[in-house]
């Protein structure tokens, strides 16, 4: 019974045992906890220590401080704008176009499989 739980997953060209990784994670967490123990113990919440320091600039309101979804990966999507233009055109919300894709795939497969 225990063997079933401890057995490694064979992948054909390797193996995987999540329990070994679990053990490694536990050891890593223990190390983190020990290192944390060396930290300063006189840290006080609600004082200057907890205030954000923005190189002397005033702190923005909470709403403005948050990095929102639209701000993330902007560079990536901008660099691949041409790809996204094509993808956005595909997903234009028009049902007729969606059906057209279905018909196109049927047509292409007819040609390929019909030739076999």
């Amino acid at each position, binding site marked *: 019974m225990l063997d079933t739980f401890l057995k490694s*997953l064979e992948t054909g060209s390797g193996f*995987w045992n*999540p329990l070994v990784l679990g053990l490694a994670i536990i050891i890593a967490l223990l190390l983190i906890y020990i290192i944390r123990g060396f930290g300063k113990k006189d840290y006080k919440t609600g004082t200057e220590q907890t205030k954000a320091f923005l190189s002397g600039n005033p702190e923005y309101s*909470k709403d403005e*401080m*948050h990095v929102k979804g639209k701000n993330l990966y902007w560079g990536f999507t901008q660099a691949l704008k041409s790809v996204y233009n094509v993808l956005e055109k595909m997903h234009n919300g028009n*049902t007729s176009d969606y059906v057209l894709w*279905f018909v*196109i795939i049927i047509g292409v497969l007819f040609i390929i*499989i019909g030739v076999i």
Partner: protein
Amino acid sequence: MNWFELITLHSPPLIVAVPLLAAFLTPLVSKINDTVRNLFVLIMLSITGLLVLILGYDVLTNGIRVYVFGGGAPLPSGMNIPVRIMFEIDSMTIFMVIITIILALISILYSWSFMKDKDGLDKYYTIILLLVTSIFGMELTGDLFNFFVFLEISCITSCALIAFYVNKKESLDAAFKYIVISSIGALFILFAIGLLYAQYNALNMATIANAIQFTFFDKIVLVLLITGLAMKSGLAPMHMWLPDAYSRSPASVTFILVGATLAGLYGSLRVIFTIYGNQLLNTGFTFYPGLIIGIIVTALGVLSIFIGVFMALKRSDFKKMIAYTAVAEIGYMFLAIGSYLIGLALSVPDNPQMLIAGTYALKGGLFHILNDALDIGLLFLVAGAVYYATKQTSLNSLGGLARNMKYTTIFFLIGLLAVSGMPPMNGFASKLLIYQSTYQISPILSIIAIICSIMLLAVFVKVFQSIFLGPEIPSLKNVKEVPKSMLAAMALVACIIIFIGLFPNIIIDNLVTPAAEALQNTTTYISTIVGGT
């Protein structure tokens, strides 16, 4: 025959009949009160779950089960004109039925609080139960026309559930798109079934599989069935209905819609492996059909992964983002199935390495069906919880929710790691099988799969940062954690994910490997009905 043997004998029709009966009793039970109705639905589905376990144990122990409606002739081999409806249940069927019942039970549990304040809940539960019935029917049946009937029920009930928020134009729009596209797909499937019936005078899958000649008409039928069912599964570029449908329906509905989508994938597997198995599952370089179909399926799988991940990365709507990642996850399954077909076609007796790699790919793909249902399902439940608490799904309007929704945040993290294929979650185990096996088929496939998986992680890191991290947003200061039944449903899925992640062998040895063997061994499926070996 004792009562247990009697239940085991009649469990296949009962698995369909119990939720069907419950569906029509629900409006009556609703007249008592809401709590009784909710308990009634849960109990009826629990009974169905018990029947699934009984049938599963029987099939996994004793082999394929056949249940005949309306005929008295003994089976196998005693039947000459297979016009009766039959349920044929093998290990693959059991694998899918188990996934469906897990999704159905959790969806109902989640609905208790999530749908509490909504009107028309008697109809909601009735349609949910009808949808569950149709998914079971699609999975259990061994008859093509019967499959089509259940597919149609699934389409209609799904449409009704997608349009549940009738006061929202987006929901109606998504439901309209879904019913138009799925009806067209279903019509092509019906046309294909008609062509098969005209040629072979049979509707039984095993009988057709035994007689099929791979004529020109058979090739047309193959194209129509594969495209129709691939559309139902949400495979690109026929996936366009899926992001709208998944994101506009209530989260509890989306959770069970994942099961309906996977039933379409199951249909594709039955077509490729069972009906056309004798024609496509052959080894040797000279046999092209299997190789060509494998390449097509793989190409569409890679396209789905690519489109799903890229579109998800740019979305700012939480649910739509998850819906696109669901398209990518479907792509991983088709990639694995296609890799198996390619591996099989390219293997030669002296060097079966490609076949071995293909078999691992198939196992990985099947394992990923279960993992996808749980991982994507959990993320949809979390999205529902966030919507329930904040009435928002836009990433630009949310932030800092980890302070007020600690448990939901933990469940999201589990779902995030699982769907991105991070160890030690369940998604990693199935994706590892797919990566390593597809690498042997073609390294480029494996590289694309890994890169897209990393991008999936990037997608959900964006979600995690936008919704759960950051400073407390003043407008969301009073947000509270969701009710216990919703937390319980999410916790249940999270526990299953962690269990499978830590002990993947238990699932692979007991469910996935028998399912893969059932698909590979077409002869057994056919001979159970038509006799011979």
